[in-house]
C-alpha cells in the first residue's frame, strides 16, 4: 500500500504535481501557504477588503482550473500572483466601464497639477523604522488614483518590466513610463507631507 503523501512537508512543485493529478488536499496546502500573499497583492491594487478577498478566491479557483498551464517557469506563488493581478486589472476595467466618468476625468483634472509637482527627495529617516515607513507608504498608495497605484504595484511589487505592464494594462510603454513617473512624484510628495506632519523630518 503506497504511503500517504505528507503534504505539510512537501515542496510547492510536488504539491502542484499532486494537485494536477486532482489531489484537492495538496491544493488546499498550497492555498494555506500562499493565501495571505495573494490577498495582499489584490488589496494593494484594489484597496478594498471585500473585493480583495473575492478576487483572491477567484484567483485560486482559476489556478485550479489552469494548473495544466503551469510549467514551473516561475515559482507557483509568482504564477498565482500574476493571475490575481490580471483579475484585479479586469475588475478595474469593469469598474471603469461601470462609471464611465471618473478615472480619465480625474486624470485630466489632476494631471496638470501633478505635472507641476517637484520630484521630492524622500529618505528613510533616523528613528523611523522600516515598519513605520511601510505603513506610511501604504497610506500614500491608498491616496493615488487607480491607474497610478496599479502601475506602481505592478512595477515595484509585481516586478514587471515596462513592456509587461503595458501589455497587461492594454496601453503603450510611453503611457506606463509617464504614469509611473507621476505616481512616484505623488508618492514622494505624500510621504514628505506625512513625515513632516509627524515631525519626523524638517
Amino acid at each position: 500500500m503506497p504511503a500517504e503523501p505528507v503534504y505539510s512537508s512537501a515542496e510547492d512543485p510536488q504539491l502542484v504535481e499532486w494537485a494536477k493529478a486532482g489531489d484537492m488536499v495538496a491544493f488546499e496546502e498550497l492555498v494555506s501557504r500562499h493565501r495571505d500573499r495573494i490577498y495582499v497583492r489584490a488589496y494593494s491594487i484594489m484597496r478594498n477588503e471585500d473585493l480583495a478577498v473575492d478576487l483572491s478566491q477567484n484567483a485560486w479557483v482559476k489556478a485550479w482550473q489552469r494548473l495544466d498551464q503551469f510549467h514551473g517557469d516561475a515559482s507557483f506563488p509568482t504564477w498565482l500572483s500574476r493571475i490575481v493581478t490580471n483579475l484585479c486589472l479586469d475588475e478595474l476595467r469593469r469598474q471603469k466601464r461601470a462609471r464611465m466618468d471618473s478615472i480619465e476625468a480625474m486624470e485630466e483634472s489632476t494631471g496638470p497639477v501633478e505635472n507641476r509637482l517637484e520630484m521630492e527627495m524622500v529618505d528613510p529617516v533616523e528613528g523611523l523604522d522600516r515598519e513605520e515607513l511601510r505603513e506610511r507608504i501604504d497610506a500614500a498608495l491608498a491616496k493615488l488614483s487607480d491607474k497610478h497605484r496599479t502601475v506602481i504595484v505592478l512595477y515595484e511589487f509585481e516586478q514587471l518590466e515596462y513592456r509587461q505592464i503595458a501589455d497587461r494594462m492594454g496601453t503603450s510603454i510611453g503611457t506606463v513610463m509617464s504614469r509611473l513617473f507621476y505616481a512616484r512624484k505623488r508618492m514622494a510628495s505624500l510621504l514628505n507631507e506625512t513625515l513632516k506632519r509627524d515631525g519626523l523630518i524638517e
Partner: protein
Amino acid sequence: MNENETELRVQALVDGELAGTEADELRARIQGDDALRELHARLTAARGLMDGAELPRPLPEPGDFHWSQISEAIEREDRQARRLAKPSTRAGWLLSWLPPLAGAACILLLLTSPSRHDGPPDLGIMLGSDHELELSDDTIDVMTYNTGDDNMSIVWLDFSIDLRPDTLHIWLD
C-alpha cells in the same frame, strides 16, 4: 527632446530599462547637468524606498472559511463545466441526427396514417356552433369555458359515479 521626455528617460535608466549606447549617452548627460543629476538621485531614492514596501496583511477571514469558499466554487464550476461539456463523439453523432430523423418519421406517419381526414379527430365528442358541451347523463355537472381568441375550450366535469363508456355519452353540438 523636451524636458518631460528627458525625465522619463532618466527614470528608465534608474529602472534598468535603458541599455547600451542610449544609457551611456544619458549617463554622460546627467554628469554634466545639475538638474538631471538631482532628478536621478531623487528617483533612485524613491525607488529604494519602495523596495519591499508592500505592507503584509493577514487575510480578514479564517483560513478554513477561505478554503471552504474556494473549494465550493471549484466544485460548482466543475459541475457547470460537466453540464456544458459536449457529449461523447458517438452520443453527439446520435444527437445530431435525432431531430431530423424524428421529423422525417412524423411526416411519414402522417402521410401513411389510414384514419387521416380533414376534420378534427373523432373523439366521440361533437362541437356545435355555440361550442357548448352537452352530456346525456344528468348526474354529471359540466361547465365549459371558451376563449374564441385562443381557440381554446376548457371543460370541467363534476361527477360522483364511475365513468363507463356505455353509460356516458358525451358530445358537443
